[in-house]
């Protein structure tokens, strides 16, 4: 007979356990998020991170063991990035019509988001690795991971900072929009998608389909612009 400990020792070393746990914890977190009325404070990704990190710490499992299983989920970030081409194609007529405002606002937004974040961190004497990891924070995480890897930040830290940015953005940006008296769906969606990527897009979709479309567009374009801009800027220093 296997004891519970033997059982754990055997399965904890198998990739399968960590895939199953990641999916199970995430699914439960989605249900919890829905029950709590979709509040951004209880976003499924944040809950999953907290639960899984606690589990790793409690069982003294190294991250490498966890990642041996979780890498199969992680791998799909690449294909998911490529797949953003489909919604970009869907809204291409609208993009073409408003291409100049979209492009300029995206450049301004992507640059100010990265510059203000790095600037504040630099003012308070943050480490170089922190500065490099914080730079791609406004971008949807798969792209931020790639950027961070390229410029020598910590990819996992960048991805986590993106998630935190998304949560903060969906809490703060609606108030900014209210203060600035923005009422049209295009601008609301655009600003939400630009500053808070996937989290903002989800929030914009609750406002309406047009806001959602512009949020998705801003998210994709900001990702693209930041992916081109940050490595070039980082190379200058």
């Amino acid at each position, binding site marked *: 007979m296997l004891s519970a400990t033997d059982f754990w020792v055997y399965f904890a070393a198998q990739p399968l356990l960590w895939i199953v746990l990641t999916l199970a914890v995430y699914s439960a977190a989605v249900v919890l998020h829905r029950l709590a009325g979709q509040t951004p404070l209880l976003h499924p990704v944040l809950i999953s991170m907290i639960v899984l990190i606690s589990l790793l710490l409690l069982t003294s499992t190294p991250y490498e063991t966890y990642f041996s299983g979780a890498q199969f989920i992680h791998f799909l970030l690449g294909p998911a990035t490529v797949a*953003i081409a*489909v919604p970009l194609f869907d809204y291409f007529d609208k993009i073409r019509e408003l291409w100049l405002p979209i492009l300029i606002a995206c450049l301004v937004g992507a640059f100010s988001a990265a510059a203000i974040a790095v600037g504040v961190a630099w003012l308070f004497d943050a480490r170089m690795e922190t500065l490099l990891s914080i730079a791609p924070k406004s971008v949807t995480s798969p792209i931020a991971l790639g950027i961070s890897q390229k410029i020598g930040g910590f990819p996992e830290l960048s991805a986590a900072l993106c998630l935190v940015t998304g949560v903060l953005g969906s809490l703060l940006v609606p108030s900014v929009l209210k203060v600035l008296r923005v009422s049209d769906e295009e601008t609301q969606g655009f600003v939400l998608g630009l500053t808070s990527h996937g989290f903002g897009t989800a929030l914009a979709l609750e406002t309406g389909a047009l806001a959602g479309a512009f949020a998705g567009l801003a998210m994709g374009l900001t990702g693209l612009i930041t992916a081109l801009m940050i490595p070039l800027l980082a190379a200058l220093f």
Partner: protein
Amino acid sequence: MIIHGLLLVLLFQLIGELIVVSLSLPIPGPVLGMVFLLLLLLFFKRVPKSLRTTSDTLLSNLALLFVPAGVGLVLHFELLRSEWWIILLALVISSIGAAIATTLTFTLLLKRQRGKEGGDA
């Protein structure tokens, strides 16, 4: 068949990665793959059903795909312990700042463009 859509997406990722590696470009391979796939779609002017299915599946579960990397935060507790408040401050200020900058720019340009179109009509 969903496998065709998946193949198409993976193929474009591979093309993107190959170009990035061979030319040592400073951008992530999948981003380049996305641009090439968009160009292909614009050329054929339609999205194959299998690609639509694959894309919808991946993007509607996008949040899940962040979890493994997010758990990797556990590796950076040391850095976070000393600098968490700087990071939080930087994220809050830049979120508000970027939202204001983007809103003002976009609203201004949108108004100008619509004003011009109205004038033409």
